[in-house]
């Protein structure tokens, strides 16, 4: 085991997979000699060369589009989009090409590739360095959408995604890149399965569902609740598409009270999908309406970002709402 940050776990996963498989190549803006603006690829160009750690011109549609071509030919590209807020020029390549390739070719072609991109707020980044775009991608059949919350999961999930045969949007919660540290297995065969949620904390009274950096906010909220004698279970979904329905339903059935927390804007967000699944399939167990604690339906603000982003106290307010609900 080694102690590392989320960011170091990204680098370790990339380095191990590149050492294991010559077909794994990285491409993106400033990822070579500069090691990426967050340093996620630091040292990799030196070790693996310019042919496998490719500095690209500044065009997200080109980064993803050429990576699609490389994947079609048989490589395993791992493109980096510098901030997920800049991914939209590549949206057509992601949605029309990468996601549909296997289906539209009757399984003749596929795009085994992982788009890594830092996402989420909390770094004073304003509109264009803070957003949480997971719902756009979760609405696209053919994509896998993964969001790790711990260093261990970051390494294990990223490695699984690189080895997998489906195209992945791998959202890295940049707010916790350096602030969350943890023990990570050194075994290069250590993998975390895609499509499986994790119980970040057990509890019998209330289920709180979250992903990414929000898992840590919810764990803080759970501590606040504990002081009031409320035992909160925090489910870290880890994979947004496909969702681990069984994990969501089994916790919801146990507690009967559900809060879903996310940074993204509320309307048509992933929290709504989680709520709908639980409402459709576990309504008979629910003792209160499902509560969503989310970013507001406004563009992401700069000065007031701490107001915009759900805090432990806002999650706690949601917990109290479901606990105190009376039919």
């Amino acid at each position, binding site marked *: 085991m080694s102690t590392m940050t989320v960011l170091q776990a990204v680098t370790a996963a990339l380095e191990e997979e590149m050492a294991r498989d010559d077909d794994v*190549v990285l491409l993106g803006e400033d990822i070579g000699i500069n090691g990426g603006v967050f340093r996620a690829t630091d040292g990799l160009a030196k070790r693996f060369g310019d*042919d*496998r750690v*490719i500095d*690209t*011109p500044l*065009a997200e*549609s*080109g980064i993803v*589009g*050429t*990576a*699609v*071509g*490389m*994947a*079609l*030919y*048989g*490589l395993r*590209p791992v493109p980096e989009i510098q901030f997920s807020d800049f991914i939209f*020029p590549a949206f*057509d*390549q992601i949605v*029309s*090409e990468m996601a*549909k*390739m*296997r*289906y*539209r*070719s*009757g*399984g*003749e*072609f*596929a795009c085994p590739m992982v788009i890594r991109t830092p996402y989420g707020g909390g770094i004073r980044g304003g509109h264009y360095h803070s957003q949480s775009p997971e719902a756009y991608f979760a609405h696209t*059949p*053919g994509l*896998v959408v993964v969001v790790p919350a711990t260093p261990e999961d970051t390494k294990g999930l990223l490695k699984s995604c690189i080895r*997998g*045969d*489906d195209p992945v949007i791998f959202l890295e919660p940049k707010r916790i890149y350096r602030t969350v540290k943890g023990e990570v297995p050194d075994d290069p065969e250590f993998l975390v399965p895609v*499509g499986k949620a994790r119980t970040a904390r057990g509890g019998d009274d209330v289920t709180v569902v979250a992903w990414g950096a929000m898992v840590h906010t919810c764990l803080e909220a759970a501590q606040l609740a504990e002081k009031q004698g409320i035992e909160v279970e925090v489910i870290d979904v880890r994979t947004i598409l*496909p*969702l681990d*329905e*069984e994990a969501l339903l089994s916790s919801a059935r146990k507690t009967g009270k559900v809060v879903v927390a996310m940074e993204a804007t509320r309307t048509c967000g992933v929290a709504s999908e989680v709520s709908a699944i639980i409402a459709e399939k576990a309504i008979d167990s629910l003792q209160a309406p499902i509560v969503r604690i989310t970013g507001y339906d406004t563009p992401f603000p700069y000065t007031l970002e701490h107001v915009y982003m759900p805090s432990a106290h806002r999650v706690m307010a949601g917990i109290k709402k479901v606990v105190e609900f009376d039919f």
Partner: protein
Amino acid sequence: MTEQLLSVLGADGAVKRKNRPSLTDEDLLLLHRIMVRTRALDERAMLLQRQGRIGFYVPSFGEEAAYVGSALALDGNDWISQSYRQPGVALLRGITAETMLDNCFGNADDIAKGRQMPVHYSFRKANMLSISSPIGTQIVHATGIAQAMKIRGDGGVCLTYFGDGGTSANDFHTGLNFAGAWKSPCIFACINNQWAISCPLERQTGSKTIAEKSAAYGMPGVLVDGNDVLAVYEATRKAVARARDGDGPTLLEFLSFRMGPHSSSDDPSRYRPGELEAEWKKKDPIKRFEAFLTKESLLDKEQIEAIHAEAEAEMSEAAKVSEKKPAPTIDSLFDDVYADMPPHLADQREELRGEGSDHRQDADAAFPL
């Protein structure tokens, strides 16, 4: 190279220049046969569409020389990233008309399992990518494929086809810019048929030619008479050799004319004069090549007629066979979304199975085709 039209064949089939490509008689006859078969396929498929037997079609009338001539300059191991208007490339690479029509009928034998509109082919065994409808997206894939070939040191090249319309799409800029920066072994083959549906070339660009856009990307550009199959072959051969030698990409502009509609849903009489079509009909690339083959005594009139009749019979027969095949199974709707079916899709498949025959009758009634 970007302003003067490269041409080998005169309108009467005479070889104008000394730089006639060194093609064997066998290759010359192959070029002709593929062009004729493609024309016959397009004609048959348009007829099927007009009769309501297939839902849609995109003909390539008049552009046969541009794509058949260029595709012949590649090796079988080279990849092709095409748009939806180069059907003869598949025929040249050994795909049968029946396989292509299976796609147009969307039947159980369709490689794409009936999931795409007609003419959106995928031919893995021929190293030809799956086709999509958004314009120009395949250009940037070609750069990626070519770069992957370079990374692996396979010695292959990738050629991508797109139209004049595609040169306005952002992926044209991106694909050429990346390939120029990386020196990828890529050939960008623009078949300039002068119309993006109803928008004529002069309203698509301020450039004098499409070939001259190459200068901005640090690669050579060549303006080629796209109705001259020998010029097309020769220009492509040089571009392929250049890419294979590690000297990077080339932009080829094959100047041609879309003799038919954009698609079976389009009516060109709404936006372009009939005289223009009549003028270009005189420049029909197949007739022009046949004049050459006759002059060279490779074929006589009777043999040419026989080749056309044979191609028409082939397409008619292939259509009959394809049309009789059943539709894909309903369960296949859920396959190939992912490598392995995730639980939520398995649940939805069960949901559909449980809906029974009423829903299927509704669905059949909604699409009489």
